[in-house]
C-alpha cells in the first residue's frame, strides 16, 4: 500500500496494516500446508534426504575422507575394497575422493544453471506476457532464435575460443563457463510457461484492482502476478537442476563440456567409457551418482508440484 497514485480524492484508505497482517499470516499458513503436503509425499521426502546427503558428501566429504583427489599412484585399477570403497582409477587415484570432487562440480554447475535459467526465463516471460505488444514479439522471436541455433555451437565457441578461455582464468578452469553456457540455453521453456501464465493472470480481477489502486507496473508484476506463479517457478527450477546435471554429462561426453583439470561426474563417465566391461566400477559409480542427483531432484520437484497443486487429489465439497 505504498504506491497509491495521487494524493487527491482518495477513497477512505483501507486499514492497510490490518490487511497486510492478515495477508502474511494467511501466507504463513499456506506455506505450512504446502510443507505438510510435501512431507506426506514419501518419494519426495526420500529424494530430499538423498539430495541433502549428496550435498554434504560433495562439500564436506573432501575434508573428511582420508585420501585427497590430488593423491595419485595409489595403485591403478584396484577394485572396490575396504581401503578404497569405490576402487581406484587408471591413474591410481582413489575413486571416493574423485567422486566427491566430481559430485561437487556437477552440483555447482546444476545449481548455477537452474538459477540462471529461472531468472532469465521468469524476467523475459513476465515482460513478454505483461507488456505484450512489440516487447512480446521481440522476446518471443528471440526465444525462437535461441531454439533454432544449433545447441552445441555456443558450447564450442566457449570451449574453443582462445579469448574466452583466457578470460576465464587462463589455467583452463572452465566449469563456470560450461555452467553459464548451459544456463543460457536452458531458460526458454520457463520463459514460455511464465509468459503464458502472466498472459492469463494479467486479465484477472486482482490485477485490475491493483491497477485501479495505482500500483506501478513493476509492483503489479512482482507483487501481484509473479507470487501467483511461484509454484510453477519453483517446480520448473527444481526440474532444471535435474536437466542440467544430465546436459552437462552429455556435453562432456561429446568433448564440449568441462575440461580437465576441472572435473564433473559427466566427465568422469566419459573418461571411463571404455572401462565399462573391464573395470565396471569406474563407469558405474559416477553413473550412479548422476542418477541419484537427478532422480532425487526429480522426486523433489514432483513432491513440490503435488504440494502446490493438490487439485487432482482434492475433492470438491
Amino acid at each position, binding site marked *: 500500500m505504498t504506491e497509491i497514485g495521487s494524493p487527491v480524492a482518495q477513497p477512505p484508505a483501507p486499514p492497510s496494516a490490518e490487511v497486510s497482517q492478515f495477508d502474511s499470516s494467511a501466507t504463513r499458513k499456506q506455506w505450512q500446508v504446502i510443507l505438510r503436503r510435501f512431507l506426506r509425499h514419501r518419494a519426495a521426502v526420500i529424494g530430499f534426504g538423498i539430495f541433502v546427503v549428496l550435498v554434504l558428501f560433495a562439500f564436506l566429504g573432501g575434508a573428511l575422507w582420508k585420501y585427497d583427489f590430488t593423491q595419485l599412484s595409489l595403485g591403478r585399477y584396484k577394485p572396490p575394497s575396504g581401503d578404497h570403497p569405490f576402487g581406484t582409477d587408471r591413474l591410481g587415484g582413489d575413486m571416493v575422493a574423485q567422486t566427491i570432487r566430481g559430485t561437487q562440480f556437477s552440483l555447482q554447475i546444476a545449481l548455477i544453471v537452474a538459477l540462471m535459467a529461472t531468472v532469465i526465463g521468469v524476467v523475459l516471460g513476465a515482460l513478454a506476457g505483461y507488456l505484450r505488444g512489440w516487447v512480446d514479439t521481440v522476446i518471443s*522471436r528471440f526465444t*525462437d*532464435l535461441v*531454439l*533454432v*541455433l*544449433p*545447441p*552445441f*555451437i*555456443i558450447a*564450442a*565457441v566457449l570451449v*574453443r*575460443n*582462445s579469448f574466452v578461455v583466457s578470460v576465464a582464468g587462463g589455467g583452463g578452469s572452465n566449469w563456470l563457463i560450461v555452467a553459464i553456457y548451459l544456463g543460457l540455453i536452458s531458460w526458454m521453456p520457463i520463459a514460455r510457461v511464465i509468459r503464458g501464465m502472466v498472459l492469463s493472470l494479467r486479465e484477472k480481477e486482482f490485477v485490475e484492482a491493483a491497477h485501479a489502486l495505482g500500483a506501478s507496473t513493476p509492483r503489479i508484476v512482482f507483487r501481484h502476478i509473479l507470487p501467483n506463479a511461484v509454484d510453477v517457478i519453483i517446480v520448473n527450477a527444481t526440474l532444471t537442476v*535435474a536437466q542440467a546435471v*544430465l546436459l552437462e*554429462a*552429455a556435453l562432456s*561426453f*561429446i*568433448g*564440449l563440456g568441462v575440461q580437465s583439470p576441472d572435473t564433473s561426474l*559427466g566427465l568422469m*563417465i*566419459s573418461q571411463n*567409457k571404455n572401462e*565399462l*566391461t573391464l573395470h565396471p566400477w569406474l*563407469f558405474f559409480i559416477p*553413473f550412479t551418482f*548422476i*542418477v541419484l542427483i*537427478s*532422480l532425487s531432484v*526429480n*522426486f523433489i520437484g*514432483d513432491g513440490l508440484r503435488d504440494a502446490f497443486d493438490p*487439485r*487432482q487429489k482434492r475433492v470438491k465439497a
Partner: protein
Amino acid sequence: MFRYIIRRLLISIPLLIVASFLCFGLTNAMGDPLGEWKLQKPRTPAEISLAYERTGYNKPFLERYVNWAGDFVTGDWGESVVPGNAGKPVKEDLLKSFVVTLRLIIGAEIIALALGMAVGVIGAVRQYSIFDYTATGIAFAMFSMPLFCVALVLKAGGIQLNNWLESIGGDRWIITAGPPGDGFKGSFGHQLFQYSGAYILPTICLIVIQFALYSRFQRASMLETLNSDYVRTAQAKGVSQGRAIFKHAFRNALIPIITVSSLNIGASFGGAVITETVFGWSGMGKFLVEAITKLEPYQVLGFMMVTAVFIIVFNLIADIMYAFLDPRIRLD
C-alpha cells in the same frame, strides 16, 4: 488458413537471416579453420595466402557472409574448407546425413509416441494403481539417466549378446557401427536379421528418452481432462465410461500432446547426437559435431538452416493442429 500459413512462413524469413548471421559469427568465433593447418608444419606465406584465397577467408567477415547468403539462395551451400578435408559439397553431405537421421528417428518417434500415449492414458484412468506407480517409476528412472550411459550400456550388452550368440554357433546379430554402407543384402530373412540388428539398440535408446516425456505429458493432460466439468456432464448424460474417457477426456487431452510432439519431432531432425555417436550412425548429429570439431563454417551453417527450417515448419504444424483440434482457436 492459407494466408495464415504464408504469413507465418514469411515472418520466419527474417528469423532465418538473423539466425544464420549469428551462427556465422559464432562459427567465426570458434577459431580460424586454417589455424591448425598452419601449425602442422612450417608453411610459406605464399602457401598460406593461397589457402586463404581458395577458402575465401582473406575477405572480411561481412563480405564472406553476404557471399554465402547469395550462394545459398541460389542453391549452392558452399564446400568444406579445412585443408585435407576441403572441397566436399555441403549440400550433398548434409543430405546424406539427413536421410540417415530420418530413417533412425521416424520409427523411434512413432513407437515412443504411441507407447507414451497409451501408458499415459492408462496411468491417468487408473490413477494410483500398480500400473500407474510402475509407469511413473519407469518414466522417472528414464528421465534421470544420462542418455549416453544408457547407450553405452546397451552397446556393451549388445556385444555380450553377440559373443554369446557366436558361442552357441549363431551369427553376430547386433550391429554397433551403424547400418552397413552398401545396404542390406542376401535373402529376405537375412536382410531382416541385419536390419533389426542395426536398428534395435539406437531405436531403444531414442524411445527411452521420448517415451518418458510423452507418457508423463499424456498422463498429466489426461488427468486434467478426466477431472473436467464437461466429462462429468457427459457421465451425467448416461454415456458409457469408455465413451466419457475416449470421446470426451481423450479427445481434449490430445490437444496438448499433439502440440508438444510436433515441436519435439521438429527438433529431432537435428539428429540424435549421442545415439548417433555411440552407435556409429553418420546422421545429422554426428555431422554437426564433426563440423564443429573441425571448425567447418559452411557445414555448421548448412546444418543450422536445415534444422531451423524444420523447427519453424513443425512449429507451424503444431499451431495448425491446435486450431484443427480445438474449435476455439482461430488462425488469422
